[in-house]
């Protein structure tokens, strides 16, 4: 199971329709595939290529540039600990060592039970709350060793399933443009004149 599901194909077509060029939907569709399977499979890349009019090699060429896309299974929970300056000043290196010890894996490694993958991350834009980490892109701020312990315990016991979805899901809510409200994509070749509201008059 790694081509996009029927439901995802419908959604993929809706997303593609928002862009003047289908290829612009490539990154959103890669996220969709990762949400479906937990990582990006070869079949999914072939399928995305078919949907946006690119070869699977082109899809891989784009996908491989971006760190969030994984091409083999990772843990259910991806734990990214920030190591950039503000976090380094506030003890992120100690936190990383502690996390390696707690989970029994090195940075980049996955626990044997497939629950956790540990990664060193760069700036997560939460610098006043250092040191910080993200679990599947959900923040934890000013993390102490004790905080890390309870986080891992809570995740292991399934106590945070409402807050933190399994790896692959980033945003749990997507955009929906109602059919009767949307303008639709504006492809460059279909437009030669100025927008109608540039008529020198007030619109209201």
């Amino acid at each position, binding site marked *: 199971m790694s081509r996009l599901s029927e439901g995802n194909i419908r959604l993929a077509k809706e997303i593609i329709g928002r862009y003047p060029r289908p290829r612009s939907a490539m*990154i959103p569709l890669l996220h969709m595939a990762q949400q479906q399977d937990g990582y990006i499979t070869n079949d999914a890349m072939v399928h995305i290529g078919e949907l946006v009019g690119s070869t699977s090699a082109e899809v891989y060429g784009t996908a491989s540039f971006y760190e969030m896309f994984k091409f083999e299974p990772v843990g259910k929970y991806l734990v990214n600990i920030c190591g950039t300056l503000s976090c380094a000043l506030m003890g992120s290196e100690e936190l990383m060592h502690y996390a390696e010890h707690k989970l029994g894996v090195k940075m980049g490694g996955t626990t044997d039970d497939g629950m956790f993958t540990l990664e060193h991350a760069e700036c997560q834009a939460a610098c006043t709350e250092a040191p910080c980490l993200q679990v599947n892109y959900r923040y934890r701020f000013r993390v102490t060793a004790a905080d890390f312990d309870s986080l891992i315990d809570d995740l292991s016991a399934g106590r945070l399933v409402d807050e933190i979805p399994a790896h692959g899901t980033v945003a749990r809510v997507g955009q929906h443009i109602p059919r009767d409200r949307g303008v639709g994509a504006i492809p460059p070749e279909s437009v030669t004149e100025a927008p109608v509201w540039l008529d020198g008059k007030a619109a209201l």
Partner: protein
Amino acid sequence: MTGTYAHAPGFIVGDRPKIVTSRFEYEDSYTLTRYLATDGYQGLRAALSRPANEVHDEVRTATVLGRGGAGFPAGTKWGLTPQGVYPRYLVVNGDESEPGTYKDRLLMERDPHQLIEGCLIACYAAGLSQCFLYIRGEMALAQERVAVALNDAYAAGYIGKNILGTHFSVDIVLHWGAGAYVVGEETALIESLEGNRGMPRLKPPFFPAANGLYGQPTIVNNVETLANLPWLMCNGAEAYTAIGTKTSPGTRMVAVSGHVKRPGVYEIVNGVTTFRDLLYKEEFCGGIRNNNELKAFVPGGGSAPWFTPDQLDLPFEGSQVGAAGSMLGSGAIMVMDETTDIPAAALTLTRFYAH
């Protein structure tokens, strides 16, 4: 326009002007209900009540400086598109990833409608036919808040066809990244939005205003820059330039991290507030932790050359900070006290840029 809206968002809240963070005090600041209860979408109404070129002139007169790093005035940037070439696009840069910086994330999480309203005003003023709002891939909450806000604003008639019953129609498309620092650079952002690897293009020939998304004239504006526009449309350029200085009007958001007592994101007065005010005053960071001595600070994001205590009395004004050898950049201040191993600190930043 000054004074037209008695409750225009946050002209002065407390003793400091708040232009973009006036709703942050509300728990539900991100909802359409709260936004409308605090004069939300009144700036759009004010804009649509005037011809587009007048709205553009108002933004030009206000000298709204770009908040992404380069500090180029938004009104001037909009004017760089070639005459008569359409369609033109708006790309919103919400890929905030410069070390130490995080104001755009808060603006997206806590007041997404303000950003949406800013996008609509920009599209109206500069004749931009479609807007793509690019949010950094790792910002799950910002993506969710903006998605809900877009859905609510579409349903309420603020986005899409015939906005507020006028002939102004524009879509705002939510787009998001997948992790890559360099994509914050505007030509790399466009590459990524076209479905490519996010590598910067050569400038020239690829100045986005002339040759951007799909080869068309494209305005790339930072989140905070656009978030200023609703207030500006409600209150006018005169009220905007009355805050700050002639060369740096209005306010700006800064994130102070590292060894201060109260790290945080603050809205300060452009050109007036000094680094000393920000680091030591009670209403801001309240001093260095444990009352230690200040050793060094980064004044404007990870790429900016560092300052020492000698430069504390400089105000947040681009040319003065530039003359002193650094830059204001993206509004990130990282503070290091006397206990800091400076070479080790420099190494973490170097590792980031190698990354």
